[in-house]
């Protein structure tokens, strides 16, 4: 049992939780994630990035978007309640090197959450970080203050121009690639399409670009192969070899179709849960 110490709503469907998990908090590094399961029997195992942590307090922070059955149910848990199972830290930590030139960190939507510890780690290594954050509109931007405080430069983009530049994140990314001071590397995390286009943007400039893949997972220990992706013609397991890979080598179209494997079942499940929630809210059938 892992206790929820704090809960905060960051936007209409994004939530932040601080969990009491001393072992994980002690060992975790940037780029790693956990797999959680809400109850013992019938719930599903889902991966979430460790967005932050406090080794002294023995806590970790998760930030998630309520998109389907499990994340919706998680968003309904309150402070003081518990999650049955949290396994971690999983995955290979981000490779952080001292760089002479700036590091560009791009986060799209909920992708800013997994980006946060990576920016932290680059700053801790003494690197100059330029962060680009993107969202559909200003209400969907998360962690703006934290990112502003951490980054040497912060560029905000929204699709509708309600905050920052009215642009896709790839626009400022391209400009930075063409700037006088060539960046050392790029990290891009967000929806698969965004990561794919970021990789396409930096490809002509041969700018090393890491992306963090969010495939479907079961065990998270390299046992099932469900999370596999094709990277440079080789099969890799995201949960142990990743989650970060060279964006110029990832076969995004294969990955995106694999992510939709259970689309119909997931939608049905979410609908059922929503209906139940409505019934409960209406004080109806139990």
């Amino acid at each position, binding site marked *: 049992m892992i206790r929820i110490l704090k809960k905060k709503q960051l936007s209409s469907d994004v939530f932040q939780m601080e969990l009491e998990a001393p*072992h*994980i908090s002690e*060992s975790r590094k940037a780029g790693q994630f956990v797999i959680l*399961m809400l109850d*013992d*029997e*019938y*719930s*599903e*195992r889902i991966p979430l990035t460790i967005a932050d942590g406090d080794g002294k307090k023995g806590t970790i922070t998760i930030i998630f978007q309520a998109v389907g*059955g*499990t994340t919706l149910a998680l968003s309904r848990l309150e402070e003081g309640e518990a999650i*049955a*199972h*949290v*396994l*971690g*830290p*999983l995955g290979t930590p981000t490779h952080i090197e001292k760089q002479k030139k700036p590091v560009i960190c791009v986060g799209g939507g909920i992708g800013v959450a997994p980006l946060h510890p990576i920016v932290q780690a680059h700053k801790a290594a003494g690197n100059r970080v330029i962060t680009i954050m993107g969202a559909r509109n200003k209400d969907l931007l998360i962690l703006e203050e934290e990112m502003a405080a951490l980054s040497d430069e912060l560029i905000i983009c929204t699709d509708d121009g309600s905050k920052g530049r009215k642009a896709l994140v790839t626009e400022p990314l391209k400009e930075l690639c063409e700037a006088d001071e060539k960046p050392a590397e790029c990290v891009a995390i967000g929806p698969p399409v965004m990561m794919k286009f970021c990789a396409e943007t930096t490809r002509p400039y041969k700018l090393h670009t890491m992306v963090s893949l969010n495939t479907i997972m*079961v*065990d*998270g*220990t*390299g*046992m*099932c*192969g*469900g999370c*596999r*992706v*094709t990277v440079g013609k080789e*099969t890799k397991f995201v949960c*142990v070899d990743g989650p970060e890979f060279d964006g110029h080598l990832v*076969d995004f*179209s*294969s990955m995106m*179709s*694999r992510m*939709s*494997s*259970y689309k*119909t*079942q*997931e939608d049905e*499940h979410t609908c059922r849960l929503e209906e139940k929630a409505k019934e409960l809210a209406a004080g109806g059938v139990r």
Partner: protein
Amino acid sequence: MTCGYKDPGTLDLEALAVRENLNLPQGLNQIKKKDRAAIPQQEMPSQEAGIRGGNMTEVALGYSENQVIVEASRCLECANAPCVKGCPVSIDIPGFIGAAAKGEFDEALDIIKESSMLPAICGRVCPQEKQCMETCTLGKIRKDPMESVAIGRIERFLADRGAEKGDSTVDKAPSTGKKVAIVGSGPSGLTTAADLARLGHEVTVFEAFHKAGGVTVYGIPEFRLPKSIVQREVDNLEAMGVQFVYDFLVGRTRTVKELMEKDGYHAVYVANGAGLPKFMNIPGENLVGVFSANEYLTRANLMKAYDTEKAATPIYKSRKVAVFGGGNVAMDAARTALRLGAEEVHIVYRRTEKEMPARVEEVHHAREEGIIFDLLTNPTAIISDDQGRVAGIECLQYELGEADESGRRRPVAIEGSEFFMDIDTCITALGNSSNPLVTGTTPELDTNKWGNITVNEDGMTSMPGVFAGGDIVQGAATVILAMGDGRTAARGIHEYLNQ
């Protein structure tokens, strides 16, 4: 093989008739060896094939008391007991079968328990025809190991009966104050935990998953090994004071070294299994609809995806399934797919049925349930539809050629035999190799070229105080070997701690 289905009641009555006719068990001493050998083997009562294909409950239902007494009376009580040499943990087979034949079931179970920790599990899943039944004299006389004394079935009866009576009282030595960490809660880890707890050591089992049992809970399906049987063993261990820590991945949450240096464990037993699925490296293997058997079975078993009403974990909806491989894993995946509603399930295997590594009983059950066997066939490519999903497979036909070094005849592709199979789901069941998570984060551990940890005869690795056993040492093997290793390591650890 008998044809025609007989229900458990009929089988019991038939056994009763034999029993009365031979005046068993009192008449045991009067039965001559020749007459014993003539008693027909008792058929295992099972759910009817047409019914069980639609449910997840256990297929084999277990002998009745009458059947056990009759079956045990078939044993010739051979002086040299060749059967014992076939059992990896050398159970005193004539001893326990002799007791069972007399109806002394408690004594019989005690004899088994001297050597085997998990008789309810091994009785169900041991490949008996390649172990104790292969060397049994009766099978030799009958020229078929399947006709040997059904040793495992008797074992299963005794274990289940014992559990029903609640036989879990064990003597525990006074505390030694020594702490042992066990990595992995599969059959090997559970066995070591039991032996060490009995010897008075403080045992903690660290398990990556949220449930204990290893492959016996996430791989082997409910219809072959009910999860409640594994849970019973885990409950017994907890009652003995063994601690279980779930959601703990050694190598990530903590390394082996940290367990010893930071957490003060005096010894560690690494029994993390061989969980790394093999793929075939053919085109199309990463399409939607291609699964490793590990993934497919974990979703179905551990995550209970078969219960579409309650379980949140989805499982792929299939119409026509092809399972690649011929071992137990392949049979389990195929029979699970059938139970999840597939219309057609194929086993696609390169050699013939004779070479299949699966237990004979499982192959037989799979055939009865309507699984289609495409033998001497191998896939060469998986074909995609326009959405990246499986639309079929390309196969080649094979024939058996010359024997290779291992004595098995090597399958050779027949030129021009390419053909297409209409399939929407592929499951690769080609076995597992060793998962590198623990060895990769513990450079002190020596491994062989397959990544398996190497150990000495006491089960100790190249790292002092660290022992290993089960699939991580043997390569994907069997429950009984994993258990045997666990026993050896427990003795080794006990000696090491007493030094």
